[in-house]
């Protein structure tokens, strides 16, 4: 089997998430009751035999280091290979500080030195549990320099406007990548994921630095599309393309459908994350829970409907949580009510307080806030 080097870089779309991304990069957003977005990328790679992963972080590095740590939950705490967390360079380079290419360039020695000859690039804000073995077979069989993954999307409602659209020739080669403006109901969405030969990757990075004509590797790939054999691989499983608050909220709510939660949680191996050693969740005699996904360590005494409840949350007596995402260790005290909302970690909604947003604009409460009566 050909093993690839996993490279996780991060889409710079923090601004689309308001206070949720005030102190964390997008890939560190909590998701699905006990995970972070990056867990899905990392686990999918590890479950497909990838043993070396480089994570190119943004500026907000502390939460990343705390969560990924030594990579133990993913068995990436190796002496040889394993997990490399690469913080951004903060000095000494005269070239652009924007984009991922300067970061890749500053670690070319490492990239060239690892044994893997193929690189899997991906950005964890798109959850797609691609069968990487099958994709690798395609990559090798077609003898491509680059294979980009896409999913065919049927989008009559225009939910995917502004996603990236990949044009594909009849024999499966990439023609170009642009923005989907909704002119076609069916289009091929680029997953910002793909295999690339290491030598080609290195060449692209070096040339972009020399010419100064590309800040991002994706940009460099497109610019150089005539120089290399770039083809495509179709993924037909479930995709969440989390690119703003609304899609983040919807992606959580989607997990209440069993087919989607099975696809996200079960397909191609379990999702590994940092464990918190919480005991099971307790439902008292006053609990009323309906259509909700609930993590461990919670104590539920009130009413919970259509919601995603993270680890260690308390819902007091007669409290109501509906259509909401409640993150780790938040507390909704007696008689309080939380509707169409997203509570970040360790929020306290005090007794009797009611907060509500709408399904298209959920009400967001920043981490560590205590919401009392005014």
């Amino acid at each position, binding site marked *: 089997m050909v093993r690839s080097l996993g490279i996780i870089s991060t889409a710079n779309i923090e601004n689309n998430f308001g206070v949720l991304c005030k102190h964390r990069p997008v890939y560190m957003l909590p998701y699905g009751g*006990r995970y972070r977005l990056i867990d899905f990328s990392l686990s999918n790679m590890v479950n497909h035999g990838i043993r070396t992963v480089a994570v190119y972080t943004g500026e907000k590095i502390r939460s990343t280091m705390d969560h990924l740590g030594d990579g133990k939950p993913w068995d990436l705490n190796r002496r040889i290979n394993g997990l490399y967390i690469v913080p951004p360079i903060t000095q000494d380079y005269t070239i652009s500080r924007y984009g991922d290419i300067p970061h890749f360039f500053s670690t070319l020695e490492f990239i060239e030195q690892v044994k893997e000859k193929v690189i899997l690039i991906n950005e964890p804000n798109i959850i797609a549990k691609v069968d990487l073995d099958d994709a690798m077979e395609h990559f090798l069989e077609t003898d491509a320099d680059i294979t980009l993954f896409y999913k065919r999307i049927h989008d009559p409602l225009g939910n995917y406007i502004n996603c990236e659209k990949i044009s594909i020739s009849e024999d499966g080669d990439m023609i170009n990548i642009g923005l989907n403006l909704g002119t076609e109901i069916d289009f091929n969405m680029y997953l910002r994921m793909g295999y690339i030969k290491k030598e080609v990757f290195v060449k692209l990075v070096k040339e972009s630095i020399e010419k100064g004509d590309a800040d991002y590797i994706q940009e460099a790939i497109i610019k150089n599309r005539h120089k290399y054999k770039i083809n495509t691989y179709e993924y037909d499983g479930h995709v969440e393309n989390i690119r703003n608050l609304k899609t983040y909220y919807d992606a959580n709510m989607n997990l209440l459908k069993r087919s989607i939660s099975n696809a996200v949680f079960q397909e191609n191996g379990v999702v590994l994350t940092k*464990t918190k*050693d919480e005991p099971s969740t*307790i439902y008292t005699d006053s609990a009323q*829970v309906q259509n*909700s996904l609930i*993590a*461990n360590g919670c104590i539920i005494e009130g009413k919970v409907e259509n919601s995603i409840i993270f680890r260690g949350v308390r819902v007091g007596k007669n409290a109501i949580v509906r259509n909401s995402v409640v993150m780790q260790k938040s507390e909704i005290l007696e008689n309080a009510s939380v509707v169409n909302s997203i509570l970040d970690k360790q929020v306290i909604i005090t007794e009797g307080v009611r907060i509500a947003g709408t399904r298209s604009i959920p009400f967001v409460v920043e981490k560590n806030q205590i919401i009392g009566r005014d």
Partner: protein
Amino acid sequence: MKKGKIVAMLLAGGQGTRLKELTKNIAKPAVPFGGKYRIIDFALSNAANSGIEDIGVLTQYKPFILNSHIGIGTAWDYDRNVGGLRILQPFMSEKGGRWYRGTANAIYENMNFIDELDPEYVLVLSGDHIYKMNYNDLLDAHKQKNADVTIAVLTVPLEETNRFGIINVDDDNRIVEFEEKPKKAKSNLASMGIYMFNWPILREYLIKDNEDKTSDNDFGKNVLPLMLRENKKMYTWEFKGYWKDVGTVKSYWEANMDLLNPDNTLNLYDRDWRIYTRTRNLPPQYIHKSSKVINSMINEGCYIEGTVEKSVLFGDVIVEKGAVVKNSVILSNSVIKKDAKVYNAVVMEDVTVESGKEIGLDDGFKIYMVTNDKVVAE
């Protein structure tokens, strides 16, 4: 000798035959408990939380599940390079191979392991019990009395003394007599099988005991009485708190039900004294809109469409529509099919209770042990 250093030796070889199906394929310390734990997690977590850095786990009987549960000790943070956790199985020397005979012999055969770590104290633990204890409190008492050995004891009802090793002490808590399961006990202090020894003393007595061909090489029966006869400084330290030796299916069921009592003293939600276990990396539990879940403890991976009341569900249990689970313990990966009813039962791992089937009575007193083959009333 490294001053102040403790090595814990955790005896995890017990078979636990009275637990029947629960110990058919595993040693008693590996029996699942409390929704996500195995019994040995309590002793291991106590040791980890007490800051004990070196621990030997002595296994002998059917160690597969136990070994793969413990692994290299990662869950308890014992995957250290130096010291940490080691599983100690019997081995062979030029005198041939020898299995562990009694509890004391198991430690005797691993004196090498302890000597290499060179501790001042050796703490002998059993992997069979459910309790939370800070072993530093035991150590403090041990140091304060300048004792050779200190035994953790607890007060038991006088009518139950015949199930325990009873210890009689003087006013200073110094041990004056051991009574093994006495019918008429002089006191109701029972040994918990938790001993804090000064290693040089223990070492000396292990060798002595080993030379005695008539000995069963057991701490309670041989080594401790010998030390008492030879006038060693032996004290008790009284433990107050939840403690359970789940010796039978009934007491196993009871101990699980205890957890549903909001006032239970084994507080699993105490963040300062967590119980650690190997995680299965299951997704959160899902509670369907047609379900009713009250007074229950439910673990990750469960999918509940029916009714669950006063029950403990382990990971990945499915309760289908119309099914009822009440006063029961359901182990991992079991499925309670549509409209089935399960009352007062312990359902083993990977069991399917077929659609419409009824087990137990809502108002019955018997406990039912359920496997795929049979249902046995206790």
